[in-house]
């Protein structure tokens, strides 16, 4: 390097280090580069902001978050909280956000179930089962999610029969081109008691599990935690339900000539989005699960057998805890992917956050900067919160090495 050119400054100074030109001094260079980057980014941000202000003024678009309390004037099909056309943009934001969370929440649960089944099936010693699971995973992972969503919505759900020729499903549900109609649960007066019993049972189960673990660590005796838990969480609420006089009934949808009355309507957009997200994400979760199980070396199982553990406890105490350590981090990122992918709702018209807020509200107000910033902030909050929880979990579960 060029620093060879620089000769030691000789005996004149007390500083015996070689005299180096400042652009060859790594420290000075570092400071220079950082200042340059900082200035460049600062200049870009300044230029962007000043241009934006000028352009907005020219186009007579208001800025600031004043639009939040203005009347929206559009309707939203699926809503979890009351909303009318006279509601505000802020209300529309909450409706969209809740719809996003609804589809993401249900999607995560179903995708996890399907993903674990398929992931384990891929490792099955049964050739046919393993091959079927492989075909599923390869087919789904190698086609775009958007294509799958459009397929479910336009080719499958739109092709369902009209209301008059609804498909009757078992349990009093109907399926037609306007969605899935299922019986609506009607909660009687005493139902809160049942919920209370369920909550109490759950808390009691957690307490007993803790106690049993402590006792096992102390004395080595195991308690029938599973059976007690079943009794507390399932049987206790059931008993309360029966004692309170069965305070739950169903309002069945009633098939008319042109319309269906009663029941709960599940919109086809929701069904399409949920189907697409679950099927797509399950393929990725299956791969995560497979990798996690394969990451536990065979020696672990063999050692557990050598100690005299039976296959059940081996799986329970040796394999699964180690596999979970590998599975959980990528599994969480799949959950985040599913949540972010739910924004593709815009393609099938499901009123999620992006479709309602970054779509309709943006078009009506024209306040692109504020609307996009809020939308991104919501997703960023979800992502950052999840990764904070993940870091905490990883720190807790990390292998303790010497």
């Amino acid at each position, binding site marked *: *390097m*060029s620093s060879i050119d620089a000769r030691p400054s000789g005996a004149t100074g007390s500083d015996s280090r070689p005299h180096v030109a400042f652009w060859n001094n790594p420290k000075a260079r*570092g400071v220079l*580069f*950082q*200042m340059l*980057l*900082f200035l460049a*980014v600062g200049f870009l941000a300044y*230029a*962007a902001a000043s*241009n*934006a202000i*000028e*352009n*907005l003024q*020219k186009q007579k678009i208001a800025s600031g978050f004043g639009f939040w309390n203005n009347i929206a004037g559009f309707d939203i099909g699926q809503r979890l909280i009351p909303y009318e056309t006279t509601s505000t943009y802020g209300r529309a934001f909450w409706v969209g956000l809740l719809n996003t969370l609804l589809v993401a929440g249900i999607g995560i649960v179903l995708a996890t179930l399907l993903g674990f089944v398929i992931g384990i099936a891929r490792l*099955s*010693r*049964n*050739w*046919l*089962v393993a091959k*079927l699971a492989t075909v599923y995973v*390869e*087919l789904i*992972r*190698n*086609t*775009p*999610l*958007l*294509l799958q969503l*459009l*397929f479910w919505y*336009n*080719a499958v759900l*739109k*092709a369902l029969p009209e209301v008059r020729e609804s498909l009757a499903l078992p349990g009093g549900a109907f399926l037609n081109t306007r969605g899935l109609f299922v019986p609506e649960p009607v909660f009687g007066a005493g139902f809160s008691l049942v919920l209370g019993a369920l909550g109490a049972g759950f808390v009691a189960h957690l307490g007993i599990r803790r106690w049993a673990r402590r006792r096992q660590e102390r004395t080595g005796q195991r308690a029938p935690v599973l059976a007690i838990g079943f009794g507390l969480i399932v049987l206790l609420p059931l008993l309360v339900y029966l004692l309170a006089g069965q305070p739950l009934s169903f309002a069945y949808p009633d098939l008319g000539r042109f319309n269906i009355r009663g029941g709960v309507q599940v919109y086809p957009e929701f069904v399409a989005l949920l189907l697409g997200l679950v099927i797509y994400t399950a393929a990725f979760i299956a791969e995560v699960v497979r990798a996690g199980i394969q990451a536990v070396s065979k020696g672990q199982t063999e050692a557990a057998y050598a100690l005299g553990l039976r296959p059940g406890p081996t799986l329970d105490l040796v394999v699964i805890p180690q596999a979970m350590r590998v599975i959980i981090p990528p599994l969480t990122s799949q959950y985040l992917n599913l949540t*972010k*992918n739910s*924004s*593709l709702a*815009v*393609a099938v018209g499901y009123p999620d956050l*992006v479709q309602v807020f*970054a779509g309709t509200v*943006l078009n009506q107000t024209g306040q*692109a*900067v504020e609307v*996009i910033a809020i*939308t*991104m902030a919501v*997703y*960023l909050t979800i*992502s*950052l919160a999840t990764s904070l929880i993940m870091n905490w979990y990883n720190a807790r579960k990390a292998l303790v090495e010497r």
Partner: protein
Amino acid sequence: MSTEMSSAPPSGTASRAYVRAAAAQVLPPPVATSGLIGWLRTNLFSSPGNTLLTLLALLIAFWIIPGFVRFLITDAVWSGADREACVAKGGVLPGACWAFVKDRLAYFIYGAYPVESRWRADLFFLLGALGIGWLLWLNAPRRDLGLVYFLVVLPLAVYGLLSGRNPLAFLAYPYDLVTGRSVILGLVFAALLFLAGFLVARSEGVRAGRAALFGLAALVILTAAGLAFERLWGAIGLAPVDTARWGGLMVTLVVAGVGIVASLPLGILLALGRRSKLPVIKFFSVLFIEFVRGVPLITVLFMANTMLPLFLPDDITVDKLLRALVGIALFASAYMAEVVRAGLQALPKGQYEGAMAVGLGYWQMMRLIILPQALKVTIPNIVNTYIGLFKDTSLLLIVGIFDFLKAIETARIDPQWAAPTVSATGYAFAAIVYFIFCYGMASYARATERRLSKADKR
């Protein structure tokens, strides 16, 4: 001491119970584990539970596969001129309407690209295939040149071919300083060309003073070459085609290609920035990576579409396709950065220390020691990111770019082909095309993984 070692048990020795009097019962031969029957037994019917599983899987297979085969092949309509071919006959719906795909194939591939210029798109496909073949064929001659071709020559050639505009116009910009047409642009590109010559000379070990001469020479020679090429390009005379008329698979491949070419270097820079010891550089890298990875691609595309025009001065308008391209490339580079970072972290610290001990500077260390090793082990993950990028190009249809999926969406609702199975056929075709590209990449990643692990096993 017993002298008779049970070689021949003497008769009448009832007291020695452990000596067998009669031959042991002959056991049946062990269950065959080879051959068709044996294979079936070990893989499908090894236990009652396994048999049940097999029957269940067979049930599922028989439920799904015949329907697929019937729809896609046996009941499909292979020829016809319009919707009449694919409507229900005698109350029975036909299968896939391949006649529709055949009729609209050119539309799916080129979109609204002018018919008389489609050979240019074909040439683009050919050049792209050539570049990919050169890079992927391990024993190909001069693979280093292949990389230059793929990263520099190909993008410029494709831009020139498809848009019909001079791809080397920027080389002639410094000449604008002489004519006084556009001073700022001229200055910027003059500085860039000078810097290019200067840095090349420096990296060859030339002293700073002489390197400046090289920079000056590069500036003059490249500008002259740019002017000469401008004449040549005018003589060839390709008709300009606006990007609004680009469409179909062509656009999907252009976007994916640009994303692939741009996201790796950007991702490497971001990953190095994230691992940098300089706090400001590290801060901005982390900020960018975490921000982009935390939001959905669609919001990034919305941002590029609606906010970018606001951020730019009034007189600069950015092409719609270019906006989306920037969005996708930046999005992919954030994911690439994390993949590269994982590779950098997997490298033992001794490699860094060894490189520094030899006296290499930071960039020399990265270029010669660290990155070649780190990138090699991450090739499978890099390709997986590319697969994600390729699938993500389909989101362009939401911001109004005419990509492959948009071509399918437009064609399937065309009244000329309004038949019940046309939508499903269009989607099936799209799925097959996307699958071929993505599965191809995935297979390459797997093969590379196997090749690399073979090297590790020695």
